[in-house]
């Protein structure tokens, strides 16, 4: 496996790009970066709208429906409202950290999008270590969140921030291990090649991996049932309790772009990315992203949240062994039985998934008990 970074040259291989496209390298870079950020912001707005409408329907109400057709512009109205609000900085806050925190949370997410293939070749850089880059950068977000919690000098926010760090450390490991299964099957770290390798979507070949990855990504983006970081009934809003105005908006944007990112990654790694019949590739990717996000919303509308120790136990005692077993099984299959028909593997791996869940949930005890004081 080639892991050197010799091909770090950005390759702007937009299919639709005419060969005599004017401008030099940096102009291209600028144009496509702006296009990408616009794409992220538009999809964030669409995600917010989608989430609010869908959760409304789950709760037998309509959701926002006043601003624009079907309430489509509600998110825009909210943005205007948030941006025009007073930006309050607490007196006792650590000013530098407080100011930097939203940026540190947002920028890595935007940077990750550079390697996410929107369609064949439509990406800012086709890194051959794409997935490693994704994993490395997306965990920086937590530093931003911890900075926010620390910088705002508020007890609630520091609790939220501590929870976030604990959560990140626990869930990053099963998340990465579940990706390794996919990488083993593909034999490459490049996201384009991962998509290319999916004649059968990896969700079928790697159901355990998908299961672990999906739950891990829920924790990664602080979504229900792992939304302890901002648990509004316990620590009110967690790390962003002291933030207002544009800083809050930045956090909000960071959080939702992470959701967009994780949906896109799930679609890319396990659902076959942009590939699909008839429709244009970018549309396929969007459909898959929204489908993944719909499930996240569905979970959010149903489940209560874990307690902190239960969440940790769930990661270490349940997801991590599952991810390791998945890794072991995948490598065994690749080494000893490479010519196996995929459909047999699909059946086998689903059987193993069900068996594992049954066995593990019997013996698995989440969380500790009362602490003697």
């Amino acid at each position, binding site marked *: 496996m080639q892991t050197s970074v010799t091909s770090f040259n950005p390759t702007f291989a937009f299919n639709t790009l005419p060969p005599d496209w004017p401008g030099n390298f940096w102009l291209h870079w600028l144009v496509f970066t702006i296009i990408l950020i616009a794409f992220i912001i538009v999809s964030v707005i669409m995600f917010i709208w989608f989430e609010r409408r869908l959760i409304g*329907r789950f*709760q*037998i109400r309509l959701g926002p*429906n006043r601003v624009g057709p079907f309430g489509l512009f509600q998110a825009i109205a909210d943005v205007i409202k948030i941006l025009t609000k007073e930006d309050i900085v607490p007196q006792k806050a650590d000013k530098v950290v407080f100011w930097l925190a939203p940026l540190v949370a947002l920028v890595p997410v935007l940077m990750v999008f550079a390697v996410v293939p929107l369609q064949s070749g439509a990406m800012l850089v086709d890194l051959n270590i794409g997935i490693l880059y994704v994993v490395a950068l997306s965990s920086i977000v937590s530093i931003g969140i911890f900075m926010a919690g620390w910088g705002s000098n508020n007890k609630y926010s520091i609790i939220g921030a501590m929870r976030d760090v604990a959560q990140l450390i626990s869930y990053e490991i099963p998340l990465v291990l579940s990706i390794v299964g996919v990488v083993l099957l593909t034999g490459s770290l490049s996201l384009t090649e991962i998509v290319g390798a999916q004649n059968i979507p990896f969700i079928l070949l790697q159901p355990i991996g998908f299961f672990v990855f999906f739950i891990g990504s829920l924790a990664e983006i602080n979504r229900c049932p792992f939304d302890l970081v901002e648990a509004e009934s316990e620590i009110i809003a967690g790390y962003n309790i002291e933030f207002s105005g544009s800083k809050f908006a930045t956090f909000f944007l960071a959080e939702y772009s992470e959701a967009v990112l994780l949906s896109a990654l799930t679609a890319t790694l396990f659902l076959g990315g942009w590939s699909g019949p008839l429709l244009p590739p970018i549309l396929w990717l969007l459909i898959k992203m929204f489908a993944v996000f719909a499930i996240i919303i569905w979970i959010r509308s149903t*489940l209560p949240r874990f307690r902190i120790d239960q969440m940790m136990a769930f990661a270490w005692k349940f997801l991590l062994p599952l991810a390791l077993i998945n890794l072991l099984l995948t490598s065994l299959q690749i080494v000893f039985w490479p010519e196996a028909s995929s459909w047999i593997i699909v059946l086998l791996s689903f059987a193993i998934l069900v068996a594992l869940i*049954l066995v593990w*949930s*019997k013996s698995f*005890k*989440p969380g500790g008990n009362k602490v003697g004081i």
Partner: protein
Amino acid sequence: MGFRRYGNGIAKGMALTFKHLFRKPITTQYPEERLNVSRRTRGTQIIWNRDTCIACSACARACPIGCIDMSTSRGEDKKLKVDNITIDFGLCIFCGLCVEACPVGNAIFLSYNWEYAEYQRSKLVLSNDELLYSNTKQVSGYYHPDVEKTLPEQTLLVNRTNRGKPWD
């Protein structure tokens, strides 16, 4: 404690929320879509009738808040008449005890209207002619069974249907 089962409780819950996805919303789009309130609504105004009032001040005495301010005097014909009646709707709790206390039966009413808002508190204090019946105010059937019969039937959530079928 602990996970005694393997996620089937979660699956059941998810199935239920999924089922609700296909049920009709129970909310109403308020300013456009209005439900009929109860015929006995204790609306946010009190309507007073000068012609039938015998100025006995029973309503003012019955009020637990003391927000009816009434002064009466004897006119030339030795009959009591109301000189001044002022009700502070910022204080009134719309309990309806004044309506119940009135011996005449059709001198004081609660209103059927419930949308009443002002920008200033001082505007919530109404007196004399402002308390009279007008075409912006409708009389509620609270303690007035004859009025109650004329009002439209209340829309009840129990009677709402879900795509033609009653709510299951």
